[in-house]
Protein backbone atom coordinates (compact mmCIF):
# COMPACT_ATOMS: atom_id res chain seq x y z
CA UNK A 1 0.00 0.00 0.00
CA UNK A 2 1.32 3.51 -0.83
CA UNK A 3 2.13 5.96 1.94
CA UNK A 4 -0.86 8.09 2.95
CA UNK A 5 -1.11 11.49 1.33
CA UNK A 6 -2.90 12.92 4.33
CA UNK A 7 -3.34 11.51 7.82
CA UNK A 8 -5.61 12.46 10.69
CA UNK A 9 -4.24 11.50 14.10
CA UNK A 10 -6.34 11.64 17.29
CA UNK A 11 -8.57 14.38 15.89
CA UNK A 12 -11.19 15.72 18.28
CA UNK A 13 -13.47 18.64 17.42
CA UNK A 14 -15.62 20.19 20.11
CA UNK A 15 -18.26 22.84 19.53
CA UNK A 16 -19.63 24.48 22.68
CA UNK A 17 -17.88 21.77 24.76
CA UNK A 18 -19.76 19.06 22.85
CA UNK A 19 -17.72 16.56 20.88
CA UNK A 20 -18.81 16.61 17.24
CA UNK A 21 -15.89 14.64 15.79
CA UNK A 22 -13.62 12.01 17.30
CA UNK A 23 -11.37 10.30 14.75
CA UNK A 24 -8.33 8.51 16.22
CA UNK A 25 -6.88 7.68 12.80
CA UNK A 26 -7.83 8.17 9.17
CA UNK A 27 -5.56 7.98 6.13
CA UNK A 28 -6.22 9.45 2.69
CA UNK A 29 -4.33 7.33 0.17
CA UNK A 30 -2.98 8.52 -3.19
CA UNK A 31 -5.24 7.86 -6.20
CA UNK A 32 -8.17 6.66 -4.11
CA UNK A 33 -11.71 7.96 -3.74
CA UNK A 34 -12.70 7.73 -0.09
CA UNK A 35 -16.46 8.09 0.27
CA UNK A 36 -17.59 9.25 3.69
CA UNK A 37 -21.23 8.35 4.31
CA UNK A 38 -23.39 9.08 7.29
CA UNK A 39 -26.70 10.56 8.32
CA UNK A 40 -27.30 14.30 8.73
CA UNK A 41 -25.42 15.69 11.71
CA UNK A 42 -22.88 12.85 11.74
CA UNK A 43 -19.94 15.27 11.44
CA UNK A 44 -19.18 14.67 7.75
CA UNK A 45 -18.79 18.32 6.79
CA UNK A 46 -16.71 19.01 9.92
CA UNK A 47 -14.42 16.11 8.98
CA UNK A 48 -14.01 17.54 5.49
CA UNK A 49 -13.24 21.04 6.84
CA UNK A 50 -10.56 19.54 9.11
CA UNK A 51 -9.02 17.65 6.16
CA UNK A 52 -9.21 20.82 4.03
CA UNK A 53 -7.47 22.82 6.81
CA UNK A 54 -10.43 25.19 6.97
CA UNK A 55 -11.08 24.44 10.64
CA UNK A 56 -8.68 23.82 13.50
CA UNK A 57 -9.38 20.68 15.52
CA UNK A 58 -9.68 21.04 19.29
CA UNK A 59 -7.06 18.31 19.60
CA UNK A 60 -5.01 16.10 17.31
CA UNK A 61 -2.76 16.42 14.28
CA UNK A 62 -3.13 16.58 10.51
CA UNK A 63 -0.16 15.33 8.49
CA UNK A 64 0.26 16.17 4.80
CA UNK A 65 2.66 13.81 2.99
CA UNK A 66 4.01 12.81 6.39
CA UNK A 67 4.65 16.40 7.54
CA UNK A 68 2.64 17.73 10.48
CA UNK A 69 0.87 20.96 9.65
CA UNK A 70 1.85 23.78 11.97
CA UNK A 71 1.69 27.54 11.57
CA UNK A 72 -0.11 28.91 8.52
CA UNK A 73 -1.89 26.17 6.56
CA UNK A 74 -2.01 28.31 3.39
CA UNK A 75 0.72 26.47 1.46
CA UNK A 76 -0.90 23.09 2.25
CA UNK A 77 -4.37 24.41 1.47
CA UNK A 78 -3.07 25.45 -1.95
CA UNK A 79 -2.37 21.77 -2.71
CA UNK A 80 -6.05 20.88 -2.27
CA UNK A 81 -9.41 21.91 -3.74
CA UNK A 82 -12.82 21.96 -2.13
CA UNK A 83 -16.32 21.75 -3.64
CA UNK A 84 -19.18 22.58 -1.31
CA UNK A 85 -22.80 21.48 -1.40
CA UNK A 86 -23.79 24.90 -2.76
CA UNK A 87 -21.78 26.10 -5.77
CA UNK A 88 -20.76 29.32 -3.90
CA UNK A 89 -19.82 31.13 -7.09
CA UNK A 90 -18.41 34.65 -7.04
CA UNK A 91 -20.32 37.49 -8.69
CA UNK A 92 -18.39 37.39 -11.95
CA UNK A 93 -18.42 35.38 -15.18
CA UNK A 94 -18.03 31.61 -15.33
CA UNK A 95 -14.49 31.96 -16.66
CA UNK A 96 -13.76 34.50 -13.95
CA UNK A 97 -14.88 32.01 -11.33
CA UNK A 98 -12.82 29.17 -12.78
CA UNK A 99 -9.79 31.46 -13.03
CA UNK A 100 -9.99 32.86 -9.48
CA UNK A 101 -8.14 30.05 -7.69
CA UNK A 102 -5.39 30.06 -10.31
CA UNK A 103 -4.87 33.81 -9.82
CA UNK A 104 -4.82 33.42 -6.04
CA UNK A 105 -2.22 30.65 -6.33
CA UNK A 106 -0.02 32.73 -8.63
CA UNK A 107 -0.32 30.57 -11.75
CA UNK A 108 1.13 32.45 -14.78
CA UNK A 109 -1.46 34.13 -17.02
CA UNK A 110 -0.88 32.06 -20.19
CA UNK A 111 -1.11 28.81 -18.23
CA UNK A 112 -4.27 30.08 -16.54
CA UNK A 113 -6.11 30.57 -19.82
CA UNK A 114 -5.11 27.14 -21.15
CA UNK A 115 -6.28 25.42 -17.98
CA UNK A 116 -9.55 27.37 -17.81
CA UNK A 117 -10.35 26.38 -21.41
CA UNK A 118 -9.47 22.72 -20.74
CA UNK A 119 -11.64 22.36 -17.65
CA UNK A 120 -14.62 24.40 -18.78
CA UNK A 121 -14.65 22.16 -21.87
CA UNK A 122 -14.38 18.96 -19.81
CA UNK A 123 -17.34 19.96 -17.67
CA UNK A 124 -19.39 21.11 -20.66
CA UNK A 125 -19.54 24.83 -19.77
CA UNK A 126 -17.04 26.22 -22.29
CA UNK A 127 -19.78 27.88 -24.34
CA UNK A 128 -21.08 29.72 -21.27
CA UNK A 129 -17.70 31.23 -20.32
CA UNK A 130 -18.62 34.93 -20.40
CA UNK A 131 -22.04 34.53 -18.82
CA UNK A 132 -22.57 35.89 -15.33
CA UNK A 133 -22.49 33.17 -12.68
CA UNK A 134 -25.72 34.62 -11.29
CA UNK A 135 -27.65 33.50 -14.37
CA UNK A 136 -26.74 29.79 -14.21
CA UNK A 137 -29.00 26.84 -13.46
CA UNK A 138 -28.16 24.64 -10.46
CA UNK A 139 -26.45 22.04 -12.65
CA UNK A 140 -24.41 24.62 -14.59
CA UNK A 141 -23.38 26.31 -11.36
CA UNK A 142 -22.18 23.05 -9.82
CA UNK A 143 -20.32 22.19 -13.05
CA UNK A 144 -18.58 25.57 -12.74
CA UNK A 145 -17.75 24.81 -9.11
CA UNK A 146 -16.24 21.42 -10.06
CA UNK A 147 -14.27 22.97 -12.95
CA UNK A 148 -13.03 25.68 -10.56
CA UNK A 149 -11.71 22.95 -8.25
CA UNK A 150 -10.22 20.64 -10.89
CA UNK A 151 -8.50 23.48 -12.77
CA UNK A 152 -6.27 23.83 -9.70
CA UNK A 153 -4.89 20.32 -10.35
CA UNK A 154 -5.13 19.50 -6.64
CA UNK A 155 -3.33 16.66 -4.91
CA UNK A 156 -6.47 16.10 -2.84
CA UNK A 157 -10.01 16.91 -3.99
CA UNK A 158 -12.63 17.40 -1.27
CA UNK A 159 -16.29 17.10 -2.22
CA UNK A 160 -18.99 17.99 0.31
CA UNK A 161 -22.27 16.54 -1.00
CA UNK A 162 -21.88 18.35 -4.33
CA UNK A 163 -24.89 16.67 -5.94
CA UNK A 164 -27.43 16.83 -3.14
CA UNK A 165 -29.24 19.96 -4.33
CA UNK A 166 -29.57 18.82 -7.96
CA UNK A 167 -32.50 17.15 -9.65
CA UNK A 168 -32.09 13.46 -10.54
CA UNK A 169 -31.24 13.73 -14.29
CA UNK A 170 -28.77 16.59 -13.70
CA UNK A 171 -27.21 14.67 -10.80
CA UNK A 172 -26.79 11.51 -12.88
CA UNK A 173 -25.15 13.40 -15.74
CA UNK A 174 -22.79 15.25 -13.42
CA UNK A 175 -21.82 12.09 -11.50
CA UNK A 176 -21.00 10.44 -14.85
CA UNK A 177 -18.76 13.37 -15.80
CA UNK A 178 -17.05 13.47 -12.41
CA UNK A 179 -16.58 9.69 -12.46
CA UNK A 180 -14.84 9.98 -15.84
CA UNK A 181 -12.61 12.80 -14.56
CA UNK A 182 -11.67 10.94 -11.37
CA UNK A 183 -10.97 7.74 -13.31
CA UNK A 184 -8.67 9.52 -15.77
CA UNK A 185 -6.91 11.84 -13.30
CA UNK A 186 -6.73 9.47 -10.31
CA UNK A 187 -6.64 12.40 -7.93
CA UNK A 188 -7.01 11.45 -4.26
CA UNK A 189 -10.57 12.39 -3.36
CA UNK A 190 -12.63 12.55 -0.20
CA UNK A 191 -16.28 12.51 -1.14
CA UNK A 192 -18.85 13.19 1.57
CA UNK A 193 -22.42 12.11 0.94
CA UNK A 194 -25.49 10.78 2.69
CA UNK A 195 -26.47 8.91 -0.48
CA UNK A 196 -25.39 5.25 -0.40
CA UNK A 197 -25.76 4.87 -4.15
CA UNK A 198 -23.39 7.80 -4.83
CA UNK A 199 -20.86 6.38 -2.37
CA UNK A 200 -21.03 2.95 -4.00
CA UNK A 201 -20.64 4.46 -7.44
CA UNK A 202 -17.63 6.69 -6.79
CA UNK A 203 -15.93 5.29 -3.67
CA UNK A 204 -12.95 2.91 -3.69
CA UNK A 205 -13.19 2.78 0.12
CA UNK A 206 -16.12 3.76 2.25
CA UNK A 207 -16.06 5.24 5.74
CA UNK A 208 -19.30 5.22 7.72
CA UNK A 209 -19.40 8.22 10.04
CA UNK A 210 -22.03 8.27 12.78
CA UNK A 211 -22.13 10.46 15.87
CA UNK A 212 -18.77 11.95 14.94
CA UNK A 213 -16.97 8.57 14.91
CA UNK A 214 -15.83 6.42 12.01
CA UNK A 215 -17.82 3.30 12.75
CA UNK A 216 -16.58 1.29 9.79
CA UNK A 217 -13.97 1.73 7.09
CA UNK A 218 -13.44 -0.66 4.22
CA UNK A 219 -14.18 -1.49 0.63
CA UNK A 220 -17.71 -1.04 -0.61
CA UNK A 221 -18.26 -4.82 -0.50
CA UNK A 222 -17.05 -5.03 3.11
CA UNK A 223 -19.16 -2.15 4.37
CA UNK A 224 -22.35 -2.94 2.48
CA UNK A 225 -22.25 -6.74 2.93
CA UNK A 226 -20.68 -6.99 6.38
CA UNK A 227 -21.69 -4.02 8.53
CA UNK A 228 -20.14 -4.04 11.99
CA UNK A 229 -23.25 -3.18 14.00
CA UNK A 230 -26.97 -2.73 13.66
CA UNK A 231 -26.84 1.08 13.20
CA UNK A 232 -24.30 0.82 10.39
CA UNK A 233 -26.32 -2.05 8.92
CA UNK A 234 -29.49 0.04 8.94
CA UNK A 235 -27.67 3.00 7.38
CA UNK A 236 -26.14 0.96 4.56
CA UNK A 237 -29.54 -0.40 3.57
CA UNK A 238 -29.99 -3.60 5.55
CA UNK A 239 -33.70 -3.62 6.23
CA UNK A 240 -34.08 -6.90 8.05
CA UNK A 241 -32.20 -6.97 11.36
CA UNK A 242 -33.52 -9.57 13.81
CA UNK A 243 -32.01 -11.22 16.90
CA UNK A 244 -31.24 -14.94 16.87
CA UNK A 245 -29.04 -17.59 18.47
CA UNK A 246 -26.69 -20.01 16.73
CA UNK A 247 -27.86 -23.54 17.51
CA UNK A 248 -25.14 -25.49 15.74
CA UNK A 249 -22.34 -25.01 13.25
CA UNK A 250 -21.25 -27.61 10.79
CA UNK A 251 -18.50 -26.99 8.21
CA UNK A 252 -18.93 -23.23 8.58
CA UNK A 253 -22.68 -23.42 8.01
CA UNK A 254 -24.68 -22.34 11.05
CA UNK A 255 -28.28 -23.03 11.96
CA UNK A 256 -29.72 -19.98 13.71
CA UNK A 257 -32.94 -19.93 15.65
CA UNK A 258 -34.92 -16.79 14.82
CA UNK A 259 -38.29 -16.93 16.54
CA UNK A 260 -40.07 -20.01 15.24
CA UNK A 261 -37.75 -20.31 12.21
CA UNK A 262 -34.35 -21.77 11.59
CA UNK A 263 -32.10 -19.82 9.22
CA UNK A 264 -28.88 -21.08 7.73
CA UNK A 265 -25.90 -18.79 7.31
CA UNK A 266 -22.14 -19.02 6.83
CA UNK A 267 -20.23 -17.92 9.92
CA UNK A 268 -17.16 -18.47 12.06
CA UNK A 269 -19.04 -17.78 15.29
CA UNK A 270 -19.45 -20.67 17.75
CA UNK A 271 -22.75 -22.37 18.67
CA UNK A 272 -24.65 -20.60 21.42
CA UNK A 273 -23.67 -17.13 20.19
CA UNK A 274 -26.35 -14.50 20.21
CA UNK A 275 -26.40 -12.67 16.90
CA UNK A 276 -28.26 -10.14 14.82
CA UNK A 277 -29.32 -11.67 11.54
CA UNK A 278 -28.98 -9.09 8.76
CA UNK A 279 -30.47 -9.37 5.29
CA UNK A 280 -30.44 -6.87 2.45
CA UNK A 281 -33.83 -6.56 0.73
CA UNK A 282 -32.36 -7.17 -2.72
CA UNK A 283 -31.05 -10.58 -1.54
CA UNK A 284 -34.54 -11.86 -0.70
CA UNK A 285 -36.56 -13.57 -3.46
CA UNK A 286 -40.33 -13.96 -3.25
CA UNK A 287 -42.25 -16.66 -5.07
CA UNK A 288 -45.64 -18.29 -5.07
CA UNK A 289 -46.29 -21.29 -2.81
CA UNK A 290 -46.31 -23.66 -5.79
CA UNK A 291 -42.85 -22.57 -6.99
CA UNK A 292 -41.06 -23.31 -3.71
CA UNK A 293 -39.61 -26.64 -4.84
CA UNK A 294 -37.79 -24.99 -7.78
CA UNK A 295 -35.58 -22.87 -5.55
CA UNK A 296 -31.95 -23.67 -4.79
CA UNK A 297 -31.54 -21.22 -1.90
CA UNK A 298 -30.92 -22.87 1.49
CA UNK A 299 -33.39 -20.65 3.29
CA UNK A 300 -37.05 -20.87 2.39
CA UNK A 301 -39.64 -19.34 4.67
CA UNK A 302 -43.41 -19.34 4.40
CA UNK A 303 -44.48 -15.72 4.76
CA UNK A 304 -47.59 -13.57 4.67
CA UNK A 305 -47.41 -10.42 2.57
CA UNK A 306 -48.27 -7.47 4.81
CA UNK A 307 -47.50 -4.46 2.63
CA UNK A 308 -46.52 -3.70 -0.95
CA UNK A 309 -45.41 -0.25 -2.10
CA UNK A 310 -43.32 1.23 -4.94
CA UNK A 311 -39.73 2.16 -4.05
CA UNK A 312 -38.12 3.80 -7.07
CA UNK A 313 -37.28 1.18 -9.68
CA UNK A 314 -38.34 -1.63 -7.28
CA UNK A 315 -41.35 -2.71 -5.32
CA UNK A 316 -40.79 -2.91 -1.57
CA UNK A 317 -42.55 -5.88 -0.04
CA UNK A 318 -42.96 -6.28 3.72
CA UNK A 319 -43.41 -9.87 4.80
CA UNK A 320 -44.36 -11.55 8.05
CA UNK A 321 -42.21 -14.62 8.63
CA UNK A 322 -42.72 -14.61 12.37
CA UNK A 323 -40.39 -11.64 12.18
CA UNK A 324 -40.45 -8.70 9.77
CA UNK A 325 -38.71 -9.47 6.50
CA UNK A 326 -38.29 -6.93 3.68
CA UNK A 327 -37.76 -7.80 0.02
CA UNK A 328 -37.21 -5.69 -3.06
CA UNK A 329 -38.59 -7.21 -6.23
CA UNK A 330 -39.08 -5.81 -9.71
CA UNK A 331 -42.44 -4.51 -10.89
CA UNK A 332 -42.45 -7.26 -13.50
CA UNK A 333 -42.00 -9.93 -10.80
CA UNK A 334 -44.89 -8.49 -8.82
CA UNK A 335 -47.15 -8.68 -11.89
CA UNK A 336 -46.11 -12.28 -12.56
CA UNK A 337 -46.62 -13.29 -8.92
CA UNK A 338 -49.98 -11.52 -8.71
CA UNK A 339 -49.53 -11.24 -4.96
CA UNK A 340 -51.28 -8.65 -2.84
CA UNK A 341 -51.28 -7.95 0.92
CA UNK A 342 -52.78 -10.83 2.90
CA UNK A 343 -51.56 -13.51 0.48
CA UNK A 344 -49.08 -16.22 1.46
CA UNK A 345 -45.79 -16.70 -0.37
CA UNK A 346 -42.33 -18.20 -0.04
CA UNK A 347 -39.36 -15.96 0.75
CA UNK A 348 -35.96 -17.41 -0.02
CA UNK A 349 -32.37 -16.28 0.36
CA UNK A 350 -28.94 -17.84 0.20
CA UNK A 351 -26.96 -18.72 3.30
CA UNK A 352 -24.16 -16.49 2.01
CA UNK A 353 -26.52 -13.52 1.79
CA UNK A 354 -27.05 -13.59 5.56
CA UNK A 355 -24.67 -11.43 7.60
CA UNK A 356 -24.37 -12.11 11.31
CA UNK A 357 -23.37 -9.49 13.86
CA UNK A 358 -22.39 -10.70 17.35
CA UNK A 359 -25.00 -9.35 19.71
CA UNK A 360 -25.49 -9.14 23.44
CA UNK A 361 -29.24 -9.25 24.17
CA UNK A 362 -30.14 -6.54 26.54
Amino acid at each position, binding site marked *: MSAPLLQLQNIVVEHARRSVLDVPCLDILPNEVLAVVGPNGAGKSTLL*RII*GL*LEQPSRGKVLFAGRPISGSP*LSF*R*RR*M*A*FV*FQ*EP*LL*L*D*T*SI*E*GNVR*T*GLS*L*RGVPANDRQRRVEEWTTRFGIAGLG*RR*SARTLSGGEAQRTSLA*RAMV*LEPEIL*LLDEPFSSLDAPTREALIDDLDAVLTSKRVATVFVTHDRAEALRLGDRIAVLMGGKVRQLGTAAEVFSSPVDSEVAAFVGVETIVPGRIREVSSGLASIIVGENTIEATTELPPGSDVLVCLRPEDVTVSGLADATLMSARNRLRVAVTRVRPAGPYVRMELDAGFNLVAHITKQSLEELAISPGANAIASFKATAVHLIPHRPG
Partner: protein
Amino acid sequence: MDLIWDGVTEALRLIFSGNGYVYEVTFTSLLVSGSATLIALVLGLGIASFLAFRAPPGRTLALSAFNAGMALPPVAVGLLVSIMLWRTGPLGQLHLLYSRTAIVIAQAVIATPVVAALSTAALQGLNPNLRLQVLALGASRWQAALLLFREARLSLLAAGMAGFGAAISEVGATIMVGGNIKGSTRTLTSAIVLEVQQGDFETAIALSFILLAVILGIITVFTMLQQRRPPA
Protein backbone atom coordinates in the same frame (compact mmCIF):
# COMPACT_ATOMS: atom_id res chain seq x y z
CA MET B 1 -40.32 81.35 -2.83
CA ASP B 2 -38.51 84.52 -3.91
CA LEU B 3 -35.92 83.93 -1.22
CA ILE B 4 -35.20 80.41 -2.52
CA TRP B 5 -35.12 81.56 -6.14
CA ASP B 6 -32.76 84.39 -5.21
CA GLY B 7 -30.63 81.85 -3.37
CA VAL B 8 -30.38 79.60 -6.45
CA THR B 9 -29.47 82.59 -8.64
CA GLU B 10 -26.88 83.72 -6.10
CA ALA B 11 -25.46 80.16 -5.93
CA LEU B 12 -24.99 80.06 -9.70
CA ARG B 13 -23.44 83.54 -9.63
CA LEU B 14 -21.02 82.58 -6.84
CA ILE B 15 -19.99 79.40 -8.66
CA PHE B 16 -19.53 80.88 -12.11
CA SER B 17 -17.99 84.17 -10.96
CA GLY B 18 -15.11 82.19 -9.45
CA ASN B 19 -15.79 83.47 -5.94
CA GLY B 20 -12.71 82.58 -3.91
CA TYR B 21 -14.54 82.33 -0.59
CA VAL B 22 -17.02 79.76 -1.94
CA TYR B 23 -14.31 77.68 -3.59
CA GLU B 24 -12.24 77.78 -0.42
CA VAL B 25 -15.00 76.56 1.94
CA THR B 26 -16.03 73.93 -0.62
CA PHE B 27 -12.43 72.72 -0.87
CA THR B 28 -12.13 72.63 2.94
CA SER B 29 -15.38 70.65 3.21
CA LEU B 30 -14.25 68.13 0.60
CA LEU B 31 -10.79 67.83 2.11
CA VAL B 32 -11.85 67.26 5.72
CA SER B 33 -14.93 65.13 4.96
CA GLY B 34 -13.09 63.12 2.29
CA SER B 35 -10.24 62.45 4.72
CA ALA B 36 -12.65 61.58 7.54
CA THR B 37 -14.56 59.21 5.23
CA LEU B 38 -11.32 57.53 4.15
CA ILE B 39 -10.31 57.01 7.79
CA ALA B 40 -13.82 55.78 8.62
CA LEU B 41 -13.68 53.31 5.71
CA VAL B 42 -10.32 51.89 6.75
CA LEU B 43 -11.29 51.61 10.43
CA GLY B 44 -14.90 50.60 9.74
CA LEU B 45 -14.01 47.85 7.26
CA GLY B 46 -11.30 46.55 9.59
CA ILE B 47 -13.72 46.45 12.50
CA ALA B 48 -16.45 44.90 10.33
CA SER B 49 -14.10 42.17 9.02
CA PHE B 50 -12.99 41.34 12.54
CA LEU B 51 -16.55 41.20 13.91
CA ALA B 52 -18.06 39.37 10.93
CA PHE B 53 -15.31 36.83 10.16
CA ARG B 54 -13.70 36.21 13.53
CA ALA B 55 -16.91 36.30 15.61
CA PRO B 56 -15.01 37.30 18.78
CA PRO B 57 -16.58 36.92 22.23
CA GLY B 58 -18.68 39.99 23.00
CA ARG B 59 -19.51 40.58 19.35
CA THR B 60 -23.14 41.41 20.08
CA LEU B 61 -22.10 43.95 22.68
CA ALA B 62 -19.60 45.55 20.28
CA LEU B 63 -22.19 45.61 17.50
CA SER B 64 -24.70 47.24 19.85
CA ALA B 65 -22.13 49.92 20.62
CA PHE B 66 -21.46 50.59 16.91
CA ASN B 67 -25.18 50.55 16.09
CA ALA B 68 -25.75 53.06 18.91
CA GLY B 69 -22.77 55.01 17.54
CA MET B 70 -24.78 55.68 14.38
CA ALA B 71 -26.97 57.92 16.51
CA LEU B 72 -24.03 59.59 18.25
CA PRO B 73 -24.91 63.28 18.87
CA PRO B 74 -22.32 65.33 16.91
CA VAL B 75 -22.17 68.02 19.61
CA ALA B 76 -21.25 65.34 22.17
CA VAL B 77 -18.49 64.12 19.83
CA GLY B 78 -17.38 67.74 19.35
CA LEU B 79 -17.24 68.26 23.09
CA LEU B 80 -15.30 65.04 23.67
CA VAL B 81 -12.77 65.77 20.91
CA SER B 82 -12.42 69.37 22.18
CA ILE B 83 -11.65 68.11 25.68
CA MET B 84 -9.11 65.65 24.31
CA LEU B 85 -7.40 68.31 22.16
CA TRP B 86 -7.70 71.20 24.64
CA ARG B 87 -4.38 72.70 25.69
CA THR B 88 -4.58 70.92 29.05
CA GLY B 89 -6.22 67.78 27.63
CA PRO B 90 -4.54 64.39 27.05
CA LEU B 91 -3.66 65.28 23.44
CA GLY B 92 -3.15 69.02 24.06
CA GLN B 93 0.57 68.84 23.21
CA LEU B 94 -0.32 68.08 19.61
CA HIS B 95 -1.84 71.60 19.24
CA LEU B 96 -4.57 70.35 16.92
CA LEU B 97 -7.58 72.22 18.30
CA TYR B 98 -9.09 74.68 15.79
CA SER B 99 -7.33 72.98 12.89
CA ARG B 100 -8.58 71.02 9.88
CA THR B 101 -7.06 67.89 11.47
CA ALA B 102 -9.29 68.38 14.50
CA ILE B 103 -12.36 68.47 12.22
CA VAL B 104 -11.14 65.32 10.42
CA ILE B 105 -10.82 63.57 13.80
CA ALA B 106 -14.31 64.63 14.93
CA GLN B 107 -15.94 63.69 11.62
CA ALA B 108 -14.09 60.35 11.55
CA VAL B 109 -15.38 59.59 15.05
CA ILE B 110 -18.91 60.31 13.80
CA ALA B 111 -18.59 58.38 10.49
CA THR B 112 -16.68 55.29 11.72
CA PRO B 113 -19.55 53.70 13.69
CA VAL B 114 -21.83 54.23 10.68
CA VAL B 115 -19.40 52.47 8.31
CA ALA B 116 -18.54 49.76 10.86
CA ALA B 117 -22.14 48.90 11.75
CA LEU B 118 -23.45 48.86 8.17
CA SER B 119 -20.37 47.00 6.85
CA THR B 120 -20.62 44.34 9.57
CA ALA B 121 -24.24 43.74 8.59
CA ALA B 122 -23.19 43.57 4.91
CA LEU B 123 -20.44 41.01 5.55
CA GLN B 124 -22.62 38.98 7.90
CA GLY B 125 -25.18 38.84 5.11
CA LEU B 126 -22.78 36.85 2.90
CA ASN B 127 -23.07 33.08 2.89
CA PRO B 128 -20.74 31.95 5.74
CA ASN B 129 -19.40 29.15 3.54
CA LEU B 130 -18.33 31.69 0.89
CA ARG B 131 -15.36 32.71 3.07
CA LEU B 132 -14.40 29.04 3.48
CA GLN B 133 -14.72 28.55 -0.28
CA VAL B 134 -12.48 31.54 -0.97
CA LEU B 135 -9.89 30.29 1.53
CA ALA B 136 -10.11 26.81 -0.03
CA LEU B 137 -9.37 28.35 -3.44
CA GLY B 138 -6.03 29.36 -1.95
CA ALA B 139 -6.67 32.92 -0.77
CA SER B 140 -4.58 34.42 2.02
CA ARG B 141 -6.52 36.29 4.70
CA TRP B 142 -6.04 39.61 2.84
CA GLN B 143 -6.99 38.13 -0.52
CA ALA B 144 -10.07 36.56 1.08
CA ALA B 145 -11.10 39.88 2.64
CA LEU B 146 -10.75 41.73 -0.68
CA LEU B 147 -12.75 39.08 -2.57
CA LEU B 148 -15.49 39.15 0.06
CA PHE B 149 -15.55 42.98 0.00
CA ARG B 150 -16.12 42.71 -3.75
CA GLU B 151 -18.98 40.28 -3.18
CA ALA B 152 -20.58 42.65 -0.65
CA ARG B 153 -19.73 45.80 -2.63
CA LEU B 154 -23.34 46.97 -3.03
CA SER B 155 -23.87 47.17 0.72
CA LEU B 156 -20.31 48.29 1.48
CA LEU B 157 -20.56 51.23 -0.93
CA ALA B 158 -23.89 52.11 0.69
CA ALA B 159 -22.05 52.07 4.04
CA GLY B 160 -19.37 54.34 2.52
CA MET B 161 -22.03 56.75 1.23
CA ALA B 162 -23.72 56.84 4.63
CA GLY B 163 -20.36 57.55 6.27
CA PHE B 164 -19.55 60.35 3.82
CA GLY B 165 -23.05 61.78 4.30
CA ALA B 166 -22.63 61.77 8.09
CA ALA B 167 -19.25 63.53 7.76
CA ILE B 168 -20.02 66.25 5.22
CA SER B 169 -23.41 67.18 6.68
CA GLU B 170 -22.00 67.50 10.20
CA VAL B 171 -21.86 71.01 11.68
CA GLY B 172 -21.94 71.03 15.50
CA ALA B 173 -18.68 69.21 16.12
CA THR B 174 -17.04 70.97 13.17
CA ILE B 175 -17.62 74.38 14.71
CA MET B 176 -16.66 73.22 18.22
CA VAL B 177 -13.31 71.66 17.25
CA GLY B 178 -12.57 73.78 14.18
CA GLY B 179 -13.63 77.18 15.43
CA ASN B 180 -15.10 78.20 12.04
CA ILE B 181 -11.97 80.19 11.16
CA LYS B 182 -12.15 81.86 7.76
CA GLY B 183 -9.49 80.62 5.40
CA SER B 184 -8.69 77.65 7.58
CA THR B 185 -11.44 75.62 9.23
CA ARG B 186 -14.57 77.07 7.70
CA THR B 187 -16.55 74.44 5.84
CA LEU B 188 -19.75 74.72 3.80
CA THR B 189 -21.89 73.72 6.79
CA SER B 190 -20.21 76.05 9.27
CA ALA B 191 -20.31 78.87 6.71
CA ILE B 192 -24.07 78.37 6.27
CA VAL B 193 -24.58 78.61 10.05
CA LEU B 194 -22.53 81.81 10.13
CA GLU B 195 -24.40 83.42 7.21
CA VAL B 196 -27.75 82.61 8.87
CA GLN B 197 -26.54 84.10 12.15
CA GLN B 198 -25.52 87.23 10.25
CA GLY B 199 -28.92 87.40 8.51
CA ASP B 200 -27.52 86.85 5.01
CA PHE B 201 -30.09 84.23 4.02
CA GLU B 202 -29.39 84.66 0.31
CA THR B 203 -25.75 83.56 0.68
CA ALA B 204 -26.77 80.83 3.17
CA ILE B 205 -29.23 79.39 0.64
CA ALA B 206 -26.63 79.66 -2.11
CA LEU B 207 -24.07 77.77 0.00
CA SER B 208 -26.74 75.16 0.85
CA PHE B 209 -27.37 74.56 -2.86
CA ILE B 210 -23.64 74.23 -3.47
CA LEU B 211 -23.42 71.76 -0.57
CA LEU B 212 -26.31 69.72 -1.99
CA ALA B 213 -24.73 69.77 -5.45
CA VAL B 214 -21.40 68.54 -4.03
CA ILE B 215 -23.13 65.75 -2.09
CA LEU B 216 -25.20 64.77 -5.15
CA GLY B 217 -22.10 64.67 -7.37
CA ILE B 218 -20.05 62.54 -5.00
CA ILE B 219 -22.90 60.18 -4.13
CA THR B 220 -23.58 59.77 -7.87
CA VAL B 221 -19.97 58.66 -8.40
CA PHE B 222 -20.31 56.18 -5.48
CA THR B 223 -23.60 54.91 -6.93
CA MET B 224 -22.08 54.43 -10.39
CA LEU B 225 -19.28 52.42 -8.82
CA GLN B 226 -21.86 50.44 -6.87
CA GLN B 227 -23.99 49.60 -9.88
CA ARG B 228 -21.08 48.78 -12.21
CA ARG B 229 -20.91 45.14 -13.34
CA PRO B 230 -17.96 43.31 -11.80
CA PRO B 231 -15.05 42.58 -14.15
CA ALA B 232 -15.03 39.08 -15.65
